[in-house]
């Protein structure tokens, strides 16, 4: 699904990302961990063509992301609040995203009804603008918006941060369900080792822009990661 080839990003004389090769197959739940400055967000930004790579390329489902925009219809992402439109209500925001992805109101409503649990009654029908919601609730809205329009690739940067425990557990269930039938690849970054090991089939550890570990998740993975980050 996603092929990363000799990808580098250099700011001045500092190399912030240097990935030789990554292959993410269709429907994989892919976890990205690393300390601050490891290059997680940089990688996601490159994948979404928000910044220009210094060299190398990313191919998303056969489309080279920085030369064509054809990857947009099947890719969705929530990186941070800059993906939300503050002066819209959550509903309006969902419908807007729906329009962009060729879904009408009824389609969007149908999808949203599946997330009532996740919203916990704090998102829909609140008569509030997104800018007035709490950070956690903003995040909920942003995450659910990425599921609109049957994307094949979903990119979530730090989705667990700022969420309350109940929502974290629900989000894990949602991600698992999403990747269950190997249709949707979910790319998740997190500082919480427990969450990623629980959700992701594969975990890549970045350190100073380079891959230091690439593990298929097993029972020992959490231990292995903890040892790595302790050392």
């Amino acid at each position, binding site marked *: 699904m996603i092929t990363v080839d000799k990808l580098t990003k250099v700011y001045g004389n500092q190399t912030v990302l240097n990935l030789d090769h990554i292959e993410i197959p269709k429907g994989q739940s892919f976890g990205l961990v690393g300390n601050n400055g490891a290059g997680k967000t940089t990688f996601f930004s490159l994948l979404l063509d928000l910044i220009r790579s210094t060299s190398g390329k990313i191919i998303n489902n056969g489309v080279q992301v920085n030369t064509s925009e054809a990857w947009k219809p099947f890719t969705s*992402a929530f990186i941070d609040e800059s*993906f939300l*439109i503050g002066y*819209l209500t959550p509903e309006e925001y969902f419908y807007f995203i729906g329009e962009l992805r060729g879904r009408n109101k009824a389609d969007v409503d149908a999808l949203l009804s599946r997330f009532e649990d996740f919203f916990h009654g704090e998102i829909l029908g609140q008569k509030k*603008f997104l800018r*007035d919601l709490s950070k956690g609730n903003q995040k909920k809205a942003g995450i659910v918006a990425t599921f609109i329009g049957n994307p094949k690739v979903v990119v979530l940067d730090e989705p667990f941060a700022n969420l309350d425990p109940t929502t974290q557990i629900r989000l894990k269930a949602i991600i698992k369900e999403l990747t269950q039938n190997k249709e949707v690849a979910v790319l998740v970054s997190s500082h919480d080792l427990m969450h990623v090991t629980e959700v992701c089939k594969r975990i890549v550890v970045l350190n100073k822009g380079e891959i230091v570990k690439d593990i298929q998740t097993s029972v020992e993975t959490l231990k292995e990661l903890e040892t790595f980050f302790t050392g």
Partner: protein
Amino acid sequence: MFKIFITLQWKSFFRSSSMGKGLLLKSLMAFFAIYMLALLVFSGGTLYFVLKKISPDASPMWTLSQYLVYWVLAEVLFRYFMQKLPVMDIKPLLLQRIKKSSIAHYILARSGVSAYNLMALFFFVPFGIVLLYQGYPPLNIITWLFSILGIVLSVNYINFLINKSEKALIVIGSIIVLFFALDYFGLLMARDFFGPIFNGLFAYPGTVFIPLLLALSAYFINFKFLRNRISLDESLKAKSTEAKTSDLAWTRKFGDMAPFLQLDLRLIWRNKRTKSQVFISLLFVFYGLIFYTQEIYAQMYPMYAFLGIFMTGIFLTNFGQFIPAWDSAYYNMMMAQNIPLRKYLESKALLISVSVVVMFFLTIPYSYFGWDVLAINFATALYNLGVNIPVILFFGSLNKKRIELDKSPFGNMQGTSATQFLIILPVLGAPILLFTGLYFLVSLEAGVIALSLLGLLGLLFRDKLTALITEQYRIKKYGMIAGFKEKNS
């Protein structure tokens, strides 16, 4: 304690983002600030002679006093919209060992030296100096100036009290209209009633204590109110308004553009700065009255061309120059989302086109001043539609400064860079130059026809131009994303 507050204030001013702006922009801003001040001082200084001319038999002080009531009311209304008590940046102080009462004093004292208050002084002090030279008694002048200061400060503090309710606004607004109407229809002379009162402040120096006491009591009411409410959940919490939604179904007619059009309409309506742009634009319809009514400008066609371009294109320049920075807060999403850039730009163009057409219709009454006015306005509107819209969208691709939508609109230079000044040249300068040249070399008709033709040509090749602009936005994409991300630029 106050010393610490003042150093904090000092740092926040000099380390603020506006100070870090480019030299060109900084000097331009300084120039405008000095220009505004000079204008105030100048009008204050000449006020005496103007008043003398308006009513030669009365003392200018007397004449002025009659209008002061309107000044006070207008000031209250103006501040109601523009001035908010600067409470947000004291959050970090709350947990420190500082008495809440000193924080309250600090906030209130700080608002006392705000630019709004200084503006009045820059106007009235020169007036007072002229009075001095005209042989008015110095004591009365000095106490009168203190009275004015007292009134300004009273307005300053009373504003914070009434700012808490919408009802107050309606009351003040109706009072102004009522006074004006009563006065106009000669039922009750508001001027005659309040004139002597304000004049009394001048005639009897002792009365200076009344406005000063008023200011002082307004200060203390505010202080008492504030001291008990310095906590996160009360006065410090930014108010969130209930979202009223409408699905704007009529925009469906515009097909693919509909979602963007809806977004733009909500953008404009739900954010202070954009909303005020609309109102300001509408107000500028009256700009023509200043010129058309004066004889020196009669038949001065280059001036008419300027008015035409300016009035029909006011929203175009005001709103258009900041495209796409209006969307800067979520530009990342716009670029990562499945968005046809072209539709996005077309929707903006449509919105501006509508504004140009509306502004043109609003300027039609000016044909009272001659059919040539109508012809010129028509030609300039066409030119705005066909040429200036693509031009301004094109220059938009140079915008790299973030705009925080929820910041106050007044004096907000966010998003301003050298680009904004660059835009003025082609948008305003080019058509006026062209028109003026043709008018002097050939005839008025030639100028009108040339502008209209250019406009029509632009409309004809709109598809090509839009494609060109879209490509430009694509090329500049990374720079814009990076620029819009910088919060303090």
